[in-house]
């Protein structure tokens, strides 16, 4: 019998207009990885916020080591040894790593911060996390993956009994995930209980001990991890039977739509970010760009759309050189980029669903100088239907939608411009399984209609499921190119490792 550290009993959470949690019982076992699974909107995040003291439940009690507790704030939770690593990083980019780790509990000497001692402690933590990060580096200067590591360091810097990780791997490369999993096993052996949330199901089965599935705010299933399979989880999450995992068809590619020739770009620090990249993408193709963080995938896409400027090279879209054009002109030419970070670059939070859908195409909704709301509404309604966007109303704020539906709105916006070539940077980050399958289907349909799709991903599963061809990038170079059939996970991982630091192939976390 497992020993229960933290217990949530009969937890309900009522938001205006929505019951987010409905009498949820959740037991956290000591020294185990307790996995919580559910689609976006199933109530995972709400439950975690309650456990971490961010929100208060409408009904129900929390017990720690058998004693009832009340968490009025995250401070209360932290004092009891409950820490949470949020999906969105809570770091201060303007401060250095050590300052971030010791934020609000600085080591002081007569009110003066002991920087040396903090930096030493931070350096030790980095050593434990196997990350060569100087504690004096500004967090804003670190790549996203390493920022995630700092967030983890911040959580384990204090004594934790229960560590909540909300999608900790969404920004990590395969190597960094290996490190994280080693760390989790280390924490487990010290008796720390982990609550783990992720959309990557294989990952959950690799690391998890206990699995609980939430749907619509209710617990629908629980089981020890060793007895469950991916299909078992998906069926319970979605309430649907799990179909065979689909793959994109390798249809005969059409005419070349996008030709990139010896593209090179230098980053702000003077480091070469893109080195002499050349490739061609034809109509009907879905080309996946795989690579570790810092491989240059995002930079490539941002350079193609015109957010950054290449020093050398040409970009030709359907016979038209677009390398010198401004961003709006490239959109007119038929190129769009659906960005990686939905919150920072995708949605406009102050605008409604309708206004977010029509943003890239306002000219076509104008009658004379004025916008026609009726036209906007008609077209938006149509897209909401076609894309199966679940929204309570077109005029509701975009922020009222779940992540997957927000992503569909952003996608709709760009499809309205009738692009010939679609650039997708991490198309399903933070998107639940159901919406992910829908987005995959949509991308395949678009390719079948003659669009050329280029997408970047750090997720092997996504690359393998979606791409008809894979280009692997490493340190700004094209490291390898595979057909869908050749692109095994081992081959991709091996090709993505920088040549200067070879690592044994095939030690991927996915098995």
């Amino acid at each position: 019998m497992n020993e229960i550290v933290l217990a949530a009993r009969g937890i309900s959470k009522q938001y205006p207009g929505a019951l987010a949690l409905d009498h949820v019982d959740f037991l956290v076992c000591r020294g185990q990885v307790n996995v919580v699974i559910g689609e976006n909107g199933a109530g995972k995040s709400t439950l975690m916020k309650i456990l971490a003291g961010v929100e208060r439940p409408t009904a129900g009690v929390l017990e720690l080591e058998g004693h009832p507790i009340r968490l009025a704030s995250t401070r209360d939770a932290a004092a009891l040894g409950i820490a949470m690593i949020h999906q969105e990083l809570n770091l201060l980019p303007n401060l250095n790593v050590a300052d971030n780790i010791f934020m609000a509990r600085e080591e002081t000497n007569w009110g003066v911060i002991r920087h040396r001692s903090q930096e030493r402690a931070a350096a030790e933590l980095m050593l434990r996390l196997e990350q060569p990060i100087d504690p004096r580096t500004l967090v804003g200067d670190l790549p996203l993956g390493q920022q995630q590591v700092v967030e983890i360091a911040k959580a384990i810097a204090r004594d934790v009994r229960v560590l909540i990780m909300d999608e900790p791997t969404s920004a990590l490369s395969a190597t960094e995930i290996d490190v994280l999993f080693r760390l989790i096993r280390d924490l487990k052996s010290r008796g720390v209980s982990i609550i783990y949330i992720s959309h990557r199901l294989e990952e959950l089965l690799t690391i998890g001990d206990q699995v609980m599935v939430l749907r619509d705010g209710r617990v629908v299933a629980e089981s020890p991890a060793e007895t469950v399979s991916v299909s078992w989880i998906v069926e319970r999450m979605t309430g649907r039977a799990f179909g065979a995992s689909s793959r994109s068809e390798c249809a005969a590619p059409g005419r070349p739509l996008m030709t990139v020739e010896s593209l090179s770009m230098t980053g702000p620090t003077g480091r070469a970010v893109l080195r002499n990249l050349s490739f061609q993408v034809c109509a009907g193709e879905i080309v996946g760009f795989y690579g570790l963080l810092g491989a240059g995938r995002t930079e490539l896409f941002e350079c193609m759309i015109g957010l950054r400027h290449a020093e050398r090279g040409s970009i030709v879209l359907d016979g038209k050189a677009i390398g010198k054009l401004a961003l709006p002109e490239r959109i007119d030419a038929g190129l769009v980029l659906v960005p990686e970070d939905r919150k920072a670059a995708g949605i406009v939070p102050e605008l409604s669903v309708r206004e977010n859908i029509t943003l890239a195409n306002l000219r076509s909704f104008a009658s004379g100088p004025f916008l026609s709301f009726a036209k906007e509404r008609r077209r938006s309604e149509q897209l909401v239907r076609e894309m199966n966007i679940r929204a309570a109303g077109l005029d509701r704020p975009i922020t009222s939608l779940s992540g997957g539906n927000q992503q569909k709105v952003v996608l709709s916006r760009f499809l309205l411009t009738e692009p010939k070539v679609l650039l997708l940077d991490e198309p399903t980050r933070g998107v639940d399984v159901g919406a992910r399958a829908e987005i995959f289907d949509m991308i395949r349909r678009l390719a079948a209609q003659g669009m050329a799709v280029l997408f970047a991903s750090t997720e092997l599963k996504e690359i393998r499921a979606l791409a008809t061809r894979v280009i692997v990038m490493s340190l700004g170079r094209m490291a390898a190119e595979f057909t869908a059939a050749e692109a095994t996970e081992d081959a991709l991982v091996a090709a993505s490792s920088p040549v200067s630091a070879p690592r044994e192939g095939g030690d991927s976390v996915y098995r």
Partner: protein
Amino acid sequence: MRRGKEGILSTAEIGRKPAAATKRSFPITGALLFRLRALIALLVLLAAFSMLSPAFLTTGNLTILVKHVAINAIMAVGMTFVILTAGIDLSVGSIAGLAGMVGGGLIDRGLVLPSFGVVVYFHLWLVILIALLVGALVGVVNGILVARLAVAPFIATLGTMYAARGAALLVSNGATFPNLMGRPELGNTGFPFLGSGSLLHIPVPILLMFLFGVAGAFVATRTPFGRQVYAVGGNERAAELSGVRVKRIQLLVYVISGVCSAVVGLIIAAQLVSAHPATGESFELDAIAAVVLGGTSLMGGRGGIGGTIIGALVIGALADGLVLLGVSEFWQIVIKGIVIVVAVVLDQLQRRVQWQPGKA
């Protein structure tokens, strides 16, 4: 797993329904009233002052009130566009001063061209056009500083605030242009009509306020430009990726603000029939206050022209009513400050209610 669900389920089932019922009815009435709080505040103020002072609710007083409001409101319309893009324009008062001086100088003294030994007088409409262009030009400078050179809006417009005020003083070496009646033989009479004339029994400044308010609201909500202004203020990067020419939008809002300010400068000069270089000092603060009272967020992307007009009316009614009640001028300033702070606090409360995550 191992737990008795029955008992817990039944007790909480009882407690849930009434909670859901009360929560659902709240957003419709309560939240709506809360959102219309600026308008409600205005109505309450009007009602209170009418009861406290018999002189308040008279045509004469209300006309004076709205005429005062008109000046601030026109300026605040331009300011609203700037603030919707998450910018700020501190130079509006100085632009008003400069435009008034340029317009006044051209009427009173004409354009002196020493090298030709002639003085050129322009037709009145041309004078107004030139003054408006001066306002637009300062706006262009603001826009270039903010959009192209990435200077923080506060600093950029602080700089042009000083520069434009200095320029206003330089126009006349600090003197006033005392007579803007114009001369019939020069064809530039009629300027005072802009400040004290009436059309259909409505004073011209009030007509202009309506004109700018309605046009501004239309542009903001009904044109692609307006939508893009909201998008730039809401999420600049998303707007850029969507093909919005962000820099052009940022430039244009400062031009709009500059033109609105120039109009204000001309109205004031016309009302006084003289142009003074100090005109418009600290007007930027009243304009910002009207925008904020009207519910537009200083972070950009949220708010609108309608709110701004109401905000300007609240400030105007407050000032007018307090004078009628004989409240000390110093107390008036204190009260104005408190009202602005309370408005922003309420705005924050509204944000918090709205941002309560609907998603789990």
